[in-house]
C-alpha cells in the first residue's frame, strides 16, 4: 500500500523533457519532510513516487530520496529502527547493485543511511544540546556525485539546517579516508552549527550514487519559501540526479 499524499496542494507533475524520471520518496512513521521532498522532485521536473516503509516494491523508481523527520520519534537512536524497514533492505540492495540506484538521505534520512551502513560515520546530539534551525552556508566539496553534479566544486550555497542530532562523528581513520577519497560532499562554512568532525555536513559512498547530508535542500527550492538569501540553492540537488540519470541511461 502506498502512502497517500495528503489533503493539501496540487500534486500533479508538470510535463518536461525529463518527465520520464521517477524518483521515490520514502515515508516512515514520523517522517516529516516527505511532502517537501516530493515537491522538490516535481520542481526539478521529475515524477515523485511515494514509497511506504513497510512495502517491498521499489516501483521501478530511478532514484530515491529518504527525507527528514523523526522516524519512530528518534526515541532509540535516530534512524536505528527505520533501517530495519523492508523498504530499506530493497533500497540498500539496489544502491549496492550494479545499477547503483542513486539515493539521497536528508537529515533523518542521512541518519538512516549511516545506520544502514550505506554511508560511514554516525550522528550524535548537537554539541550545544539544542535543536537548531537556521539558514546555513555550505561549501560543495565534491561535485562528482549523482546528487551534486550541477554545482561547481567549491561553490558556496545556502540551504536550511534544522536538527537535534546533527553532529557528524567518525573515527580519525574513516575521516582521513573520506578526505583522501574526496567523499566529503559538503562542509559547513563559518560557524560549525553542531560540532561535526571536520565541519562535515554531508558525505557520499565510494561510487558517488549514495549521498547523505544533515541540511535540507528540499526547503530551498522555491523563492519566498526558503532561506532569506538565495532561496533556491537546493534545487540543483534534484536536477543533478536527473542529469546523472540521463547520462547514465544514454
Amino acid at each position, binding site marked *: *500500500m502506498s502512502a*497517500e499524499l*495528503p*489533503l*493539501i*496542494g*496540487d500534486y500533479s507533475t508538470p510535463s518536461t523533457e525529463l518527465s520520464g524520471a521517477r524518483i521515490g520518496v520514502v515515508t516512515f*512513521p*514520523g517522517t*516529516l*519532510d516527505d*511532502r*517537501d521532498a516530493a*515537491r522538490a522532485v516535481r520542481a526539478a521536473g521529475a515524477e515523485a513516487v511515494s514509497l511506504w516503509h513497510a512495502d517491498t516494491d521499489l516501483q521501478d523508481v530511478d532514484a530515491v530520496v529518504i527525507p527528514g*523527520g*523523526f522516524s*519512530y*520519534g*528518534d*526515541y532509540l537512536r535516530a534512524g536505528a529502527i527505520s533501517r530495519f524497514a523492508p523498504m530499506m533492505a530493497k533500497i540498500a540492495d539496489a544502491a549496492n547493485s550494479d545499477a547503483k540506484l542513486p539515493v539521497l538521505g536528508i537529515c533523518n534520512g542521512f541518519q538512516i543511511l549511516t545506520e544502514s551502513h550505506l554511508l560511514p560515520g554516525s550522528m550524535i546530539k548537537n554539541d550545544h544540546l*539544542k*535543536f*537548531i*534551525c*537556521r539558514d546555513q552556508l555550505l561549501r560543495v566539496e565534491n561535485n562528482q556525485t549523482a546528487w551534486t553534479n550541477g554545482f561547481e566544486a567549491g561553490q558556496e550555497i545556502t540551504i*536550511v539546517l*534544522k536538527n*537535534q542530532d546533527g553532529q557528524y562523528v567518525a573515527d580519525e581513520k574513516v575521516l582521513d579516508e573520506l578526505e583522501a577519497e574526496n567523499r566529503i560532499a559538503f562542509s559547513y562554512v563559518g560557524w560549525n552549527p553542531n560540532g561535526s568532525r571536520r565541519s562535515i555536513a554531508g558525505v557520499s559512498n565510494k561510487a558517488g550514487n549514495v549521498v547523505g547530508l544533515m541540511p*535540507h535542500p*528540499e*526547503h530551498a*527550492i*522555491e523563492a*519566498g*519559501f*526558503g532561506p*532569506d538569501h538565495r532561496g533556491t540553492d537546493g534545487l540543483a540537488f534534484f536536477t543533478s540526479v536527473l542529469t546523472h540519470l540521463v547520462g547514465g541511461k544514454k
Partner: protein
Amino acid sequence: MSQEATKEFNIDTVDNAAGTPDVELPWAELGLKDNEFAEIVKILGRRPTAAELAMYSVMWSEHCSYKSTKNHLRQFGQKVTPEMKKDLMVGMGENAGVTDLGDGWAVTFKIESHNSPSYVEPYQGAATGIGGIVRDIISMGARPIAVMDPLRFGAIDHEDSQRVVHGVVSGIGGYGNSLGLPNIGGETVFDPIYQGNPLVNALAVGALRHEDLRLANASGVGNKVVLFGARTGGDGIGGASVLASESFDDTKPSKRPAVQVGDPFAEKVLIECCLELFKASLVEGIQDLGAAGISCATSELASNGEGGMQVELTNVLLRDSTLTPGEILMSESQERMMAVVTPQNIEAFEAVMAKWNVEYSWLGEVTDTDRLIITWNGEVIVDVDPKTVAHDGPVYDRPYARPQWQDALQADTFKSSEAGANLPATGEELKAAALELIASPNMCDKSWITNQYDRYVGGNTALAAPDDAGVVRIDESTGLGVAIATDANGRYTYLDPYAGAQLALAESYRNVATSGAIPAAVSDCLNYGSPEDPDVMWQLAEGIRGLSDACMELGVPVTGGNVSLYNQTGDKAIHPTPVVATLGKFDDVARRTPSGWREEADGQAIYLIGTTADELDGSEFANLRGHLGGLPPKVDLAAEKALGAILINASRDGMIDAAHDLSEGGLLAALSEMVLRYGVGARVALDEIKQRDGIDSFTALFSETQARALVAVPRSEEVRFNDMTSARGVTVARMGIVDAQSGALEVQGEFTVSVDELREASEGTMKKYFG
C-alpha cells in the same frame, strides 16, 4: 496488590449508590462546592457513584465549564453583524471555529493556555500544550499547518526563569518539531508579575476542504464508539487521586502526576492516521481527548448527537492496570481520540489503524436513550443525562467592582513620576536610550527561542518570526493562504482593562494587515487571576466587554478560544493578559510584505503612516525605568481600520516592499527591527513629525501611539502611494530613505548607530541569560 481486588473494591454501582445514600464522598477534595454537589444529587435523584462524581467534578470545573465567565463570554456571540458571520462556517463552542477562505478551502484555528502545567513541569507542560491544541484542529477534519506560541515569563534574571524558559522552549520545540508543523511566530515577554505564573499559550491552525469538515457529535443510533491512539494511563489525573486515596481504597498508590506526559511521535502518527480516516470518510463524528479525557469526550459526543451512548469501560486499553473507573474517566493521557464509526466501516477503519500501527478499542455504541450509560464488566457505574455533565454545569455571576486602587494607578503618569524626570534629550542620550531599549528583555532579538523551532517544514512558510505575522500558504496552485499574529500587553490591560483588551486586538489586527492579509477572524486566550477576587473579576468583565466591542467595530468575529483563570500566587494576580490572535486571508501569499527592507530596496522612501501623540504611560520605555501607571495609549479603531486598508491595498497593488507596525518600543523599535531584519541601514529625520504633531525627539522615538506603521515605498510608487493615503484621509510623513551603503541607522541631527552595534545590543541579551 491485585488487579482483581482493586477493581472489586472500586465498583460503586448505580444500584449501590441508590442503596447507600449516606456514604461520604470526597466532593470537596475534587473541587466541587456544596451547592454544586447538592445540584448533582438533585439531578440524579440519588448520590452519584464514584465514577459519576469523577465526571461531574471535572466537567464542572472552571476549566471545562467556564462557569465564572459564561455570562460574560456571551457577548462574543451577541455583538456580531450578519456581515461578520458571512464567512463563518463553525462558530464558538466546537473544538475550534472554522472560516471560509474561498475556492472550497476553509481554515480553522484556536489558541489555548497551558499555564500551570508549564510552571510545574515546564517541558511536558509546554509540549502537551502544543499536542492538545493540535488535536483540537484535527478534530475539525483539518490538516494542521502551523503552530505559534505566545509566552510570558517572570524576570529574565530570576533564577527560576532558567528552569522555566529552558524547559518551555525545549518542550515546544521537542514536541512541535516532531510533528512536522512549522512554528511561525508568537511573542515573548518577561515581567516579574509572571514569576510564579508563567503564561504558555499555544495556537494551532489547520486547513481543510469544505467537504472534510467534521464535528464532535455522536450521530446514528447503533454506530460504534471507538477510542484510539495512546493507551490510557495515570497521568494528568489531578484531583482524581483523592478518589483512590481517601475513602475508597487505602492500599492504592495515592500520588499520580498531575501533569500529562507527551509522546510527539504518537501524535504525528495520529495526525496522519486521522487524515486518512477523513479522506476515506470513515468517521461520522470525532472528538479529541483533552481536559477531562473520556468524561468530556463521551458526554460531549453523546449530548451533541443522538443524545445517548452506551460504553463498557473495561474495554479501554490501559497503561496501568490498577486504574479505577473514576481515574480512567478523568485521565488526561495525551494522543488519544474518540470517534463514531458506522458498522459498515469497521473493517476499513481497522485497516487504517493497522497501517499506522495505532491501537484502538471499541467501547460501545450510540443510542437515542438520552442517557450516557457506562458499565464496568456489565455493571452500571454511570447513568446520567450527558447534557447535565457537558452543558448544564453551574453558572456564576461573580461579584465584581472597579478596584479602589485603579484611580490612583491611572493618576500616576510616567512624566509626572520620579522615573519620568530627566528624560533623554541630546543625541547622545537618545542613542544610549535606544540601545538600552533594543537590548531590553522584551524588545531584544528572540532568535535564541525561534531558532529552536522548525519554521520551514511543509515548504509553505512565507513569513515567520520576527515578521509581524506568520504567513502560510494553503493551496500551492493559487497561493491562497493565511496570516496569523498573536498579541497582548499586560501592562496596558492592567492600567485599563477595557482599553487594554482592545489594544491587544488592535495590535494583532494591525500586524496581520501589515503582512498584507485581510483580517477575518479572532481567537482569544484570556489569562487572568482568580475570578473570586472582585478586582480580578472586574478586569475580566471589562476585558471581555472591551474585546467584544472592538471585534464588532473592526468587523472580525471571535471564533473560539479559552479562558485561563487563577493565574495568581497568593493574593497577587498576574496583569490581566488577554492574548488575541487574529487570522487574515491571502488570495496569494506571494504578495506578503516582509517586516524589513533588503539591499535591493536601496534608495526607497520610508514613510510613517499615522500621527504620534505623547503616550509613554505603560510603554516599554517607562517599563525600563521601572514605572507602571497612567493610562495606556488611546484606542482608535477607525484609524486602525483605515491603516489596515492602506497596508492591504499597498500590498495588493505592489506599492510597498516592506512594512512594520509600531507597537511596543514605538518608532525607535520599529526602525531598528526593520534595519536588523536584513541588516540594511536607513537615514531618517524626525523634523516633520515633531513639527506636525507638536512633540519632541524623545516622544517621537519612544511614544507608543497606536494605529501607526512604517513602510518602504519604491520611488516609482510614491505618487500612487501618496494619492491613496490622501484620498483615504490618512496622515503620512516621508521620514527618509533606505541606505544599503551606510551600514547604519542614522536619525539625522540626533545620532547614528551602526547595524553591528544594533545587532550586538539586540542579540546579546538572550545569549547572556540563557547561553
